[in-house]
């Protein structure tokens, strides 16, 4: 599978990374290089193999579903690029 410029543009859009037209060619080459190299996995027979999502070898622990933290709006907002009172502020979304 080889990516065309339209697909690179679509992926960048999905990833919410602005890509200038002038960067498309270089990115397309790099991504196709990496994806082409990954194709070597096609030679591995995985018939009947269950996918491994992670290597944590224990069942996840249960805990009470209780509020254990909170009430720190100022700390949460301390790193906000822009805030309005107790809220994160962003450009207008709905007219």
């Amino acid at each position, binding site marked *: 599978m080889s990516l065309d410029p339209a697909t690179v543009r679509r992926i960048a859009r999905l990833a919410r*990374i602005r890509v200038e037209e002038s960067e498309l060619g270089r*990115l397309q080459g790099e991504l196709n290089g990496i994806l082409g190299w990954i194709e070597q996995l096609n030679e591995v027979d995985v018939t009947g193999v269950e996918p491994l999502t992670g290597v944590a*070898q224990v069942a996840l622990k249960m805990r009470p579903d209780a509020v254990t933290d909170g009430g720190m709006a100022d700390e949460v907002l301390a790193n906000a690029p822009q805030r309005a009172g107790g809220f994160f502020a962003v450009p207008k979304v709905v007219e």
Partner: protein
Amino acid sequence: MTLTDLTLTEARDGLRQRRFSSRELTEAHLAAIEALNPRLNAFITVTAERARTQADAADAAFARGDAGPLAGLPIAIKDLFCTKGVRTTAGSDILGPFVPPYESTVSGNLLRDGAVMLGKANMDEFAMGSSNMTSAYGAVENPWKRRQDREAVLVPGGSSGGSAASVAARLALGATATDTGGSIRQPASFCGIAGIKPTYGRCSRWGIVAFASSLDQAGPVARTVRDCAALLRSMAGHDARDSTSVDCPVPDYEAACSRGVKGLRIGVPREYRADGMPGEIDTLWQQGLAWLRDAGAETIDVSLPHTKYGLATYYIVAPAECSSNLARYDGVRFGLREGAEDLTDLYERTRARGFGAEVKRRVLIGTYVLSAGYYDAYYLKAQKVRALILRDFTDAFQRVDALLTPTAPSAAFAQGENMDDPIKMYLNDVFTVPASMAGVPGMSVPGGLDANGLPLGLQVIGRPFDEETVFAVAAAIERAAGFSHRPAIRAGNGA
């Protein structure tokens, strides 16, 4: 006595015997940082005043008689660990203004045990790299020099390049690092120091800026195996805030360093030979096996047949997870924001400006392999191959107690080398990635020098949660190798 030349455990014993104070020890390291960091760039942030305060607190604890196990020992913290009130960048512009309001569990454990934080160590952006060249805060210089080419500026490896360089140059007694595909072991090998990636789940990931959550694991780098053992004992342990951290006792790793290897079966995986690998790496590997046999171990040929697919599998799984984890950098809640007309434009411009080229490549690859229509062909396939890689290790560990391999297919290379093609850089991790995919512990220990006078590491891989055997084998190699070489650029020797 030069305080910066002490190992971490020697310095610990000196403090306990009151031969010097933590303040003296800390000032010696701060002076070394002041002298050499402008050149090495191993620290992004130096926290000198905080370090002095912590050193004085440690000295007071010694006076009271209630000093913790690492009291007064100055160390570096990789800038991937959130540190309360101290800027944490992950090597990225997008986190340039970020000051965490909380402390990561691992760095908190070290502070609890009395360690002194000298500052935040430089690293590849979001831990994505093998040379420290992707840091938004500049490259790190490896303190080692080629004998024949002293002008060449070498890379320290990555992603924990600042951690490894600071320890090798004696700017810190030890450092925290993290390893997703080799980011502790490869820089340790390049800088002539020791470093262990423990079993996945041994250290809490809480408060560590996430890269690939099913692979990320914290561990120490230090100048000796025993120093790593002392640091890991404090770093490790169960944490309710990380559901993948494992609730099992943390053993006395230092005791394991003295165990010896008599009667141990050491596996030699025949697939750990890379195309174009220098002959001296193979020679060192054979030497390492001979050392272990001399110490009473038996060496056994084993096969890990899916080794060659480790990297390709990694470059699906890790980008997939990073594309999800890095979605949080949107310019809204923290970090950089780039002004824009509307919200989507804000996201896109912030991420375009805030992420470097390697991070963008991986986010885009990850987005693609998870996208509708391609998920099965790439991501699901990679997860199945990952299962086969784990099976390789499980099978091998039926027959052997540990594996010995080279850590990396080369010694440290120069800045600018391996930069023309992303895949060339990825190949650095060919020997470290499989253990990451399987979640098993791996440690790099210096074995010797190549013809250029550059350090080469050997990797010991162990069973899940059997770091003790890894420490025992690594310590045996360390004793036999008698590695006492020091880098050209180090505290007290600025040349």
